[in-house]
Structure formats: C-alpha cells, structure tokens
C-alpha cells in the first residue's frame, strides 16, 4: 500500500509531519466481481471452512486500486499526502463488491 512519494495515513495528522495546506476530500472506488474460477474454488472451500485466499487477494487488489484512484485525485490537487483515510466495502449486487477509499488531501512539509 504505497503510492510513490505520497504519504497516506488514517490518522488526523501524520506523525512527525506538519500539515501546511488543506486540499479537501479525495476519494477513489472500484466495483469488482469475483470470477467464476475463484467462485468455484470458494464453493469447495466452504466444505471445510477457513480462509478463502482467492477472495482475500481479490479484495486486496481492489482496495489497492481504489487507493490508487484516490491518490491520483490527490495528486491533481497538488497534495503530497492524504490523511484520515477510511475504507468502505459494500456488496452492491450478487457476486460483486464495491471498495471505496476516501480521505483528506493535504500538503505536509
């Protein structure tokens, strides 16, 4: 979870840095569907329970993409950091999930 040179934190301030300028809310999202192979594997895994690795990876990738889009937006405002980042996951439809990331774009020294 690292954007090049952009600092991201989920706290109101970045420890050890001072916020100079506020650029407002930035966000990024993506909607992903599970592909059928993963779904079948998950169905088999359901027999014994436990981790569904395919889904874990899928959601990690999706969250990464949502973050990237958020960072892109932050860069376009001239920010070099995003603070107070929050995530939201919602099942928008059968077999699909939305990953949403948002935060406040700032310039830190």
């Amino acid at each position, binding site marked *: *979870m*690292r954007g090049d040179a952009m*600092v*991201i*934190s*989920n*706290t*109101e*301030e*970045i*420890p*050890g*840095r001072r916020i100079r300028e506020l650029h407002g809310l930035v966000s990024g999202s993506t909607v992903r569907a*599970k592909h059928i192979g993963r*779904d079948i594997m*998950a*169905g088999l*895994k*359901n*027999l*014994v*329970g*436990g*981790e*569904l*690795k395919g*889904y*874990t990876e899928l*959601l*990690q990738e999706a*969250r990464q993409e949502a*973050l990237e889009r958020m960072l892109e937006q932050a860069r376009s405002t001239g920010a070099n950091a995003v603070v107070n*980042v929050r*995530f*939201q*996951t*919602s*099942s928008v*439809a*059968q*077999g699909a*999930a939305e990953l949403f990331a948002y935060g406040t774009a700032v310039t830190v020294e």
Partner: protein
Amino acid sequence: MDGPETFGSFNWLRLLLPFGLLAMGFFIGKAIENAHLRSLHRREIHWRRIPVSTLDAPPEGWRVTRAGLVDGSVVVSIDHWKRLLAGLRAIFGGRIRAYESLLERARREALLRMQENAHQRGFHGVVGTRLETARLATASRDGNGTAGVEILAFGTGVERAR
C-alpha cells in the same frame, strides 16, 4: 441416455453424500481451526515487538521519522457443518460459538498481517488502528448464502528514530 434404473442404483450415494460432506467439514474444519489457533498464538508472541494502538498519537517518547498506511485483511467462511449448527441455534436463540470463533480468529489474523505488513515496510509500530467487517454476498443460485466475511485491519505505520 440414463434409464430410471441406472439412476436408482445411485440413490444410496445421493442419500449419503450430504452426511459425508458434513462429516468431512466437521473433521477437516476442526483440524484446520486447531492448526490456525496454534499458528496465531506463535505469531502473536513473535509480533509483540510491533506495538499496535488505536490512538492517533504515537507512544510517549517516540520520535517519528516516517509514516504510512499499513493493512492486513482476510476473507473467511464457515464450513457447512457449523452453518447447520448455527441454523439450529437460530431457532432457539443464544450464542453461536462457531461464528464467534471464526470471527475472532479472522480478526487476530488480520491484525497479524497488518503487523507483518508494517514490519516489511520498516515501521516499528502502528497507530490509529481500525478494524472493519464486511459481509460478501455469494453468487450462488439460492441467493441467500454468504460467500464469506472480510475482516480488514488498517492503521498508520510509524518509523521510530534510532
């Protein structure tokens, strides 16, 4: 083309299959759960050196030189045997231990992964930690199953000046 008698000879299999799958789920599920608990215990001791806090401020006396977002996540599902027990439990109400155990293990796993992520990226601690739970709907035809539950742990990793 299958005649009715060909199909009939497999009736015993079709009758036993659900029970076989339930038994398999029970025994393998139990073994996996125990192995996971042992692994969690071992790694929790190991990762104590990366302190995790839900406060925004780093621990007293830490001079922070670098910070960045860290996370860990896991998607878990429950086996059919436990799902059946949970369904029975829902008739009478009360605690569903099977789900409690699953979610507890998933949270511990997500936190450990966050600590591992923090360590990989050279951070010495995590502040502002949050835990989120999301239910993933299944794409199956019956439409009422749960594909799994995602637990996400995230926070801000901090590097401490030496």
